C-alpha cells in the first residue's frame, strides 16, 4: 500500500469506516457503484496490508470485511467497552461443539457432553447471534440442526471456520468423528487395542 491510495481504496476505506455492519465483498462492490469485485478484493488485500500493525485494522470475518481496533490496544479501550456477553460453562461448551461439528443436532451435542442440554442454552447462543438453526437432518425424526453465524466468526476474530483453533489437529486425530465411527476405525486397524487396557 503506497502512501497515496487510489480512488477505489479511498472509497473502500470510507465505506468500511462508516458502515454499521461488516460488508461482504459483493455488497461492498455494489455500494461502490458496481465496482469490479476482483478489483475490490485486490484493493481490500492492499488495505489490510497497509493497516496491519497500525492501531486499527481492516479484517475479513466470515466473508465480511470491517475495521476494528488492534487487539493489543484493548487495555486502552476497556474502560469504555460495552459489556461482553459472558457465557456459562455449558453454553461455552455447546458453542464449541456447534462450531467444531456443525451442522449438529441437539442429540449429537448431548452425546458428546454426556448430559442433557437445556433448551435455554441454545437459546442464549441464538440470542447472542452466534448460533442459528441450519435446517433439519434428513433422518427419522428430522431433528433440527444448528450451525454458527457470520457474527460468531466476527466476535471471535475468525476469518472462517477453518481458523477455529486446533480444528485441523482435532480432525486429523479423529476427535470430530462420532465415538462409534472412531471405535470401528480403531477396531479395524488394531483388533487387539481393547486388550491393551489391562
Amino acid at each position, binding site marked *: 500500500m503506497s502512501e497515496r491510495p487510489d480512488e477505489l481504496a479511498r472509497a473502500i476505506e470510507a465505506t468500511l469506516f462508516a458502515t454499521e455492519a461488516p460488508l461482504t465483498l459483493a455488497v461492498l462492490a455494489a455500494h461502490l457503484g458496481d465496482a469490479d469485485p476482483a478489483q475490490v478484493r485486490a484493493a481490500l488485500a492492499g488495505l489490510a496490508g497497509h493497516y496491519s500493525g497500525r492501531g486499527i485494522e481492516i479484517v475479513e470475518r466470515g466473508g465480511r470485511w470491517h475495521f476494528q481496533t488492534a487487539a493489543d490496544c484493548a487495555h486502552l479501550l476497556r474502560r469504555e467497552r460495552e459489556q461482553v456477553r459472558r457465557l456459562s460453562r455449558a453454553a461455552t461448551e455447546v458453542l*464449541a461443539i456447534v462450531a467444531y461439528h456443525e451442522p449438529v443436532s441437539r442429540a449429537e451435542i448431548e452425546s458428546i457432553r454426556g448430559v442433557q442440554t437445556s433448551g435455554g442454552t441454545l437459546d442464549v447462543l441464538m440470542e447472542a447471534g452466534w448460533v442459528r438453526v441450519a435446517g433439519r437432518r434428513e433422518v427419522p425424526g428430522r431433528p433440527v440442526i444448528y450451525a454458527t453465524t457470520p457474527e460468531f466468526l466476527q466476535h471471535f476474530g475468525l476469518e472462517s471456520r477453518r481458523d477455529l483453533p486446533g480444528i485441523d489437529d*482435532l480432525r486429523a486425530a479423529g476427535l470430530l468423528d462420532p465415538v462409534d465411527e472412531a471405535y470401528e476405525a480403531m477396531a479395524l486397524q488394531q483388533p487387539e487395542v481393547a486388550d491393551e487396557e489391562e
Partner: protein
Amino acid sequence: MTGEGLMLQDNAASPGDEWVTPASAPTADEALYLELDGWEGPLDLLLDLARRQKVDLRQISILALVDQYLGYIERAEALRLELAADYLVMAAWLAYLKSALLLPREEQEDPSPEELALRLQLRLQRLGAMRDAAARLMARDRLGRDVFVRAAPEGLRIDRKLKWTCDWFSLVQAYGQVKARTAPAIHMVRERPVMTLESALERVSSMLGVTLDWMRLEEFLPPHAEPRLRRSALASSFVAALELARLGKAELAHDDAFGPLRLRRVRA
C-alpha cells in the same frame, strides 16, 4: 446439576479463563471438591478425574478412573451430599464395568468390557477436546472485549430518488387536450333527410286503407328514397305501425325473430 444457560454477569475472570472447574482449582485437598454442582454431569466429572492422572487421555487407566469415581461418590454420600441420579447411574455402570474387566475371560458378553472401556475413553477424549477448544475459543481476541468497532458509525444509506420524465410531445399534446376540452364548443347539427312520425303515421294509415291484405313494413317506405331517408322512414314507419296497433286500427304479425314485420288493417 444443570446450571445451564445462565449468563454470568461478573467480570472477574481474565480473558481465556472463563470458568474454573472445581477439580482444576489449585489445591491439594480433594475433599474440598465434593461440591458436585461444578460439573456438567458425570462424564464431566470423569474427565476431570482423568485429567488428574496427568497422562494423555489415550493412556489413562480406566480401572484407576473407575476407582477414583467410585471413591468420590462414596465420600459424597458419607458427607450426605445430595447426588443427582445420573451420577449414581454412572457409578453403578462403572462398578459393573470394573467387575466385568476383572472377571475371567471365558464368558464375556457382547459388547465386551474392553469395548465399553474403550468407548468411554473415546468419549472422554471427545469431551476433553471440546472443553479445550471452548477455552481456546474464549481466549481469542473478542469483539467488544479485545477489539472494537466504531461506537457510533454513520451507517450507509441508499436513498431511492424518483427521477421524473416526460417528453416534449406529451407536454404539448396535454396542453392541446386541455384547451380542446375546455374551449367553448359550438355544436352544429347537420341537415339530414328525415321522415317525421306524423308523416309516417299519415302515410301508413292511408296505405293501409287501400287493402285488407297483409303488407310487409318495407312496402310502406318511399320506394326511391336515398339510404339515409330510408333509414329514418323505416324507424318512423315502425313506430307508426305500433301506434296504429295500439289504437286498434291495425294488427301486426311477426312470425319469427328478425323476420319480416307484416301489418294489415283491422276490419271496422
